[in-house]
């Protein structure tokens, strides 16, 4: 392993920028993601910084089943995130559509149709600790030795 890769690994393990996008949920999961910011869970002690800018994000949290406006825009947001990147589905909605995947709905789940999802956190809504745990366990898998893993 090159020395450059080692430095990159160290830096990446302690600096994860998270961006979240709500593609049509009841915003219950939204506020649970926000609750991770609270000093009780203290997401920043793990070096995770939550903000909402896809251009400098590493992890994209996708919340909600996909509404008509997001069908084309979700892919755009995914393309704007620089490599290496990972998308995590939060809640039941991006996985299956939850209660919205029924007759008469305007949504078109799942999110996997639009962007690749690396991890899923089921729950309606999942607890902040579960969200935190998912980010912490999936990020190292993708970011460690990223350049060497490239073909």
């Amino acid at each position: 392993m090159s020395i450059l890769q080692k430095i990159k690994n160290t830096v990446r393990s302690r600096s994860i920028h998270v961006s979240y996008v709500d593609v049509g949920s009841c915003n219950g999961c939204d506020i649970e993601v926000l609750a991770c910011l609270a000093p009780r869970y203290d997401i920043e002690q793990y070096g995770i910084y939550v903000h909402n800018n896809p251009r400098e994000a590493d992890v994209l949290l996708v919340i909600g089943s996909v509404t008509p406006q997001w069908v084309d825009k979700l892919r755009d947001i995914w393309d704007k995130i620089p490599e290496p990147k990972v998308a995590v589905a939060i809640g039941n909605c991006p996985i299956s559509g939850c209660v919205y995947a029924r007759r008469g709905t305007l949504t078109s789940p799942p999110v996997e149709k639009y962007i690749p999802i690396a991890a899923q956190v089921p729950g309606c809504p999942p607890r902040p600790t579960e969200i935190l745990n998912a980010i912490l366990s999936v990020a190292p898998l993708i970011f460690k030795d990223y350049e060497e893993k490239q073909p």
Partner: protein
Amino acid sequence: MKYLYEKDLRQMKYNILTSTKHDEAVRAIAERLGMSDAKLRMVLIRRFDMSLLENLESRWQMGQRHADDGDPVAKGLGYELFTRFIPLVDTETMQTIYSDTTAMTQEIPFDEAIARGKEQIREAVLS
């Protein structure tokens, strides 16, 4: 990559108007204006933004409760109702129609003058 994106919102705006309460409100407004529902829907979708469409029903309700107290001509035309509560007609046009109608009430019967004023409002809405 696209930097500017404007999506066709007409289908989504129509979806808003299909809700039970909104549909009732649109029908009531169309009846008040004396035009067909479909034409009014077209105008609404073209002129209003989505938030105003969502709020159509409660604005219509408040308009009926609070708009145009006192003046019979303004009440007949819906002066405040169609400029401030449901902004279908701009204020200057409405002011012209209002003064025309007020002048007409001196010459012809009140009801007929109001009917002519309403005709002008319809034209302004459809223009």
